[in-house]
């Protein structure tokens, strides 16, 4: 086995204890709740009078009378098979609600991450090449203004203009390709304003490197120097891309609720308001696991791309 695959294996194995710990925390979250799950279930099912016997019966049905550790083990094993139990409110299996929502959120996230990265690289390069001139200053000024704006306000303004005034785009739902335009652009505008600054400063750092000076001294055409700069700065772009996916996935809550996007964000807020713990628990676990998986993957990709990171691994 060569050095690289050993590194990949080691890095993946490191994720396992982390996953165990977060699954335990997620499990314990439920117990910290001031409300009795059995009571919530009975309330949700519309049982008119909750007696002590009924509570005890429900607890046994939910497996609440067993020791904590046994419950955790059982819960873990069934979670590994994507069986997160049933929703307290609707009684349907959690995964049948969470799975489609996860896919919808993922679609939105990946498309947004791609547009974020394209826009960030484009703007970052333009700003770095025109550093200090009016193009750079005005782009940075606009980005500064947009990052100070709550994204839901931006979304509301866009909906008001494009959907209500012009009636071009749908205001909510996920019916057609057009429904992607507004949510994706809101997410792109909010995040590209942050990430393009990273691309820009990485380009500017590379501009001061010796190889650029050497290339210029040799009289290379400026376009070829720029191409080399680009190749070296793209590494930052890759790490931003993988960093952006989990962050966007975790924070589409506001956007999804605004556009009535049937994703994880909508589902989680709905479950919080109806106190449907089993869904909240599964939501936290699935997102945290996805977060760890993407982080591990992006570490591996970064190491593959950058020989400097390999040395100390």
């Amino acid at each position, binding site marked *: 086995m060569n050095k690289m695959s050993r590194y990949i294996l080691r890095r993946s194995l490191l994720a396992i204890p*982390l996953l165990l*710990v*977060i699954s335990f*925390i*997620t499990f314990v*979250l*439920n117990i*910290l*709740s*001031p409300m009795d799950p059995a009571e919530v279930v009975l309330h949700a099912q519309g049982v008119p009078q909750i007696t002590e016997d009924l509570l005890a019966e429900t607890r046994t049905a939910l497996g609440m009378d067993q020791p904590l550790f046994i419950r955790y083990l059982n819960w873990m094993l069934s979670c590994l098979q994507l069986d997160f139990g049933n929703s307290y409110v609707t009684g349907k299996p959690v995964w049948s609600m969470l799975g489609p929502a996860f896919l919808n959120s993922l679609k939105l996230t990946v498309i947004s991450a791609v547009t974020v990265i394209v826009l960030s690289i484009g703007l970052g390069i333009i700003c770095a090449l025109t550093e200090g001139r009016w193009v750079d200053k005005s782009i940075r000024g606009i980005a*500064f*203004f947009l*990052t*100070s*704006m*709550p*994204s*839901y*306000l931006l979304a*509301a*303004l866009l*909906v*008001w203009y494009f959907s*209500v005034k012009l009636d071009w785009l749908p205001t909510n739902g996920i019916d057609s390709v057009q429904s992607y335009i507004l949510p994706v652009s809101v997410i792109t505008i*909010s*995040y590209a304003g*942050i990430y393009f*600054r*990273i691309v820009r*400063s990485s380009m500017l*750092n590379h501009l001061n490197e010796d190889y650029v000076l050497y290339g210029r001294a040799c009289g290379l055409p400026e376009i070829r120097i720029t191409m080399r700069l680009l190749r070296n700065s793209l590494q930052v772009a890759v790490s931003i891309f993988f*960093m*952006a996916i*989990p*962050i966007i*996935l*975790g*924070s589409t*809550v*506001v956007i999804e*609720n*605004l556009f009535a996007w049937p994703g994880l964000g909508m589902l*989680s*807020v709905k*479950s*919080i*308001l109806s*106190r449907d*713990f089993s869904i*909240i628990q599964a*939501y*936290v676990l699935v*997102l*945290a696991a996805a*977060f*760890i998986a993407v*982080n591990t993957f992006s570490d591996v990709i970064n190491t593959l791309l950058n020989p400097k990171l390999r040395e100390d691994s």
Partner: protein
Amino acid sequence: MNRIHYLFKDRLALFSFLLITTTLLVGIFAPWVAPNDPQEVHMNLRFASVSWKYLLGNDHLGRCVLSRLIYGIRPSVLWVLITLAISVGIGAVVGFVAGYFKEKTDAFLMRICDIMFSFPGYVMTLAIIGVLGVGIENILLAFVLIKWAWFARIIRTSVIQHSNAEYVKFSKALGTSSFKIMRMHILPVTLPDIIVTSSSSFSSMVLQISGFSFLGLGVQAPHAEWGMMLNEARQVMFSRPEVMLAPGITTIIFVSAVNFFTDALQIALDPKLTPIGREHRKGLKQRANLHRGEVA
């Protein structure tokens, strides 16, 4: 003092600072500053436009928009500031202990931070609201639980850099107590880093809190909060889009002021304007920007 003088030479920074302090003062003294009762309903004044008694007009229940904005400073800004202070405090203690004692203590504390990092910020907040119930105090609690790890990580890096300095080794050799070394020798040099990182996450926290209130998970009616006012305005967005203006513009101006001030602070607090100092600051700034990564 020299640095503060340098900071306020920047007109924009001075202006932002004045704006932020005025906002804080107005928020603290809200009952004396607000022209009307923010919860007083006048059904005959629904969506009334600007008048002398109601300087910014009235909302969908005829309540005074200006008074609601002023009372909204408390949850939107003041409580966020307190939350930030608590999380920076915890982060600083952990960061100092980890960075100063190194080795096993450091490894242990950093593993805990790693665990905290594996929950995306929004998800952890939603989980805590889900368990403890809707309300701004639970959101603030969630923020403290998440953010301390961030501050601990950044402060630790800064402490490690300085704890290897010659003067620290010298003090250790003299037998000065660890606490005194941290207080006398390490705290003053890491303070700029702490201020820069904490101030740069202030604006994102303000936006996130207002985002949660916008979703109806934070401040509950009838109390006023900027995000919630925007949410109320959204219900009538199609018929009266102008209701969004007051809370929207207030949020944008305040957050911009915080961002401007943070940027100016970063430049002003540069310890030595040497290339090395600048490089270090640049890395820090990049990290701070990444931290800003989660937007509302």
